């Protein structure tokens, strides 16, 4: 285990880019988790400042069209976008992993059914699915979570399935079967720990996709409900005022990009650490 930790230290933090991503991610995580308790101001307080006030010492990120302080709104946006996607992706990871395990291990009809199900979700245009879900369930967090799940579920199923296919042929699985272990036991005790690496990698990708989807939904007015903010809804809010209040789009857009980028960078690094790709030089 100490080896893992060492790898983590060397590989994850070894280069500046990853370090940057990890730091940014840490900050965002901190803001997301503890934002409401930080002395940043009330994100919902209307007329806290002038309408569409430019960034100033008092309002670092300026104010919006209802005179709300934009900084706490962005922080709240991080919280909803980030945490919401994280919850959604976590749920999806659990479901997708189980389905992928079942598909890869049980094979045949189960595999066919699950694979087709994943295909259906995959073939459904993601945003249309989003619109439909949001419309059926009503906009809000629940439907945002559902949409993110629908969009990322096939990713998990596919990856876990293919890894499972590889693992299921290994000796220890056959040995457990011969010893009389039940299907569930084989899946949970023997297969699950061995696909976790792939799941972890997928998790970070799914998280960044989740954030994009959440923001896109909010951007279309289908995400979190006003007056609460998510990065997407802030962008939507700001994009109407781009000409006279560019700070709204710039700050929230930058934060969103930073969030996705840092998750991506850290995800890359996790991938590299778990499954190092060492191409050889061509000389």
């Amino acid at each position, binding site marked *: 285990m100490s080896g893992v930790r060492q790898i983590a230290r060397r590989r994850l933090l070894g280069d500046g880019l990853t370090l940057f991503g990890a730091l940014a991610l840490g900050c965002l995580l901190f803001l997301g988790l503890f934002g409401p308790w930080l002395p940043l101001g009330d994100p919902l307080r209307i007329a806290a400042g002038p309408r569409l006030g430019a960034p100033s010492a008092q309002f670092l990120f300026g104010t919006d069209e209802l005179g709300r302080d934009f900084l706490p709104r962005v922080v709240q946006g991080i919280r909803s976008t980030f945490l919401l996607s994280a919850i959604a992706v976590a749920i999806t990871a659990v479901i997708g992993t189980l389905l992928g395990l079942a598909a890869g291990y049980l094979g045949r009809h189960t595999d066919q059914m699950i694979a087709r199900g994943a295909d259906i979700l995959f073939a459904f245009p993601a945003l249309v699915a989003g619109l439909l879900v949001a419309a059926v369930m*009503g906009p*809000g967090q629940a439907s945002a979570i559902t949409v993110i799940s629908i969009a990322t579920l096939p990713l998990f199923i596919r990856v876990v399935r293919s890894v499972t296919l590889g693992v299921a042929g290994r000796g220890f699985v056959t040995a457990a079967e011969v010893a009389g272990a039940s299907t569930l036991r084989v899946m949970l005790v023997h297969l699950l720990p061995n696909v976790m690496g792939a799941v972890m990698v997928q998790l970070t990708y799914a998280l960044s996709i989740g954030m994009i989807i959440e923001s896109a939904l909010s951007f279309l007015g*289908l995400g979190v409900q006003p007056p609460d903010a998510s990065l997407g809804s802030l962008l939507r809010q700001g994009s109407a005022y781009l000409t006279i209040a560019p700070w709204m789009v710039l700050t929230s857009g930058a934060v969103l990009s930073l969030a996705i980028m840092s998750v991506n960078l850290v995800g890359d690094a996790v991938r590299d650490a778990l499954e190092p790709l060492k191409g050889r030089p061509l000389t």
Partner: protein
Amino acid sequence: TWGKPAEITGFDVHVAGTVASWEMYQMVYETLLTTDDDLNLQPGLAESWEEVSQTRFIFTLREGAAFSNGRVVDAQDVIGSIERIRNPETASYWAHQLGEIVSMEALDDRRVAVDLARPHATFLPALAHITAAIIPVQEYQAGEFNPESEMLGSGPFMVSAHNQDESWTLLRNPHYGRDGYPRADRMNVAIIPDESARMAALRDGRIDFTTFENPDAPQMLGTTAGVAHHPIQTTNYYRFDVNALSEDSAFHDRRVRQAMNLSLDRDAINMLVFNGTSAVDYPVPAAFGTDACHDLDTYALPREERLARARELLAEAGQPAPRVELMAASANPVLVRIAEVAQQSLAEAGFDVRIAAVPTAEYLQRVFTDGDFDFSASWLAGYTDPSMVIQWWNPNFAVWNLAFQEEVPELSEALAAVRSVPDSPERDEALRDICAMIDEGANLLALVSKVDYVVYRSDQVEVRLADRTGSANTWQYIAEFAPAE
């Protein structure tokens, strides 16, 4: 080129109930009457009308008015159109507005007489609304014209091409009755729902005129050369529908509704959402020039006292902190902003308001059909006459608000009575009483008046705009628009 913010929702002029559709119909169809800048009735397709008695009207059609296929509009078209509106098969919501018509007869080709069962003051204003447009009935009956999928009218333009959600091409109606009009040979319509894209289009001159609901739009475009703007006061106002009927809603208790009405900060809505360009409005729209409602507590008391009263009412009702959901169609950011401001001002009185921004279709179904909501934000077309608007407070008359509007018998009687009273000081008096009753019921609240922010390229187009309009008749002078030299 007109930058239109939304595509029509259907072709049938007698049926569609959305402004987006009306605006397009107004290009193609005509009504018997229209209104002028002061919202007085004006000749439209009918060059004159005669009020023989309170129940009998005779309309004389304009000489030379013709549909764009060249056929002259005749009396049968008028009768057939009104019949079609009244036909339940058509499912036109306008049938009620016309009152109870007993008979219609064509006196000659150009004259129609209409008999009502009883006096109906809003009969004429109702005819001035585009939903009462005159369609070519002869072609309709012959099956040559299907009003559900095409448009053919006597208005200034005719449809030459349409790409859904994309563009329309309108050409001059060569048989338009007024000589020299329309001044433009052709009008392109670009459907651009996105506000930023619409601004961009204005900036690069791809469209010549458009409207914004966002009060900041003119400012955002301010720096661009050639862009002029013109706010049009309308008789429309933003409103809250409050669900008085549902027992699930805290607003079932009238005191809670009154408390909500009292604690609303209409000034804040005006200042924050509209940057002060709008004005507090009343059930009887201020645009009509009456002062009904102005002295009521809801409007006249200082805010602190209103809040104190509201808290008292809530305490009386035994609900010091009612949880309510405020619904708004997410497609319209202005409504959402109103909801956000309202949420905060209501919180001061103890309300716990949750906002639900939902898709339009869902909003419509939940509010108007299911009555499954607490209160919702939208706006109300003030039409062209104060006694038309207030009829909405009789749900049996209005029908659309049956799902949530409480019927108050005295109010309904008063409304029925005022309907037959012509504009006069007595009527103003009656309106004041009615307004007090409306305020008492707090079932359908006026918030602030709705301003249409028209923005156009003064270097590209010559426009004529009214200062005030009723019923989304923003482009009533469209025939006089012309390309700038």
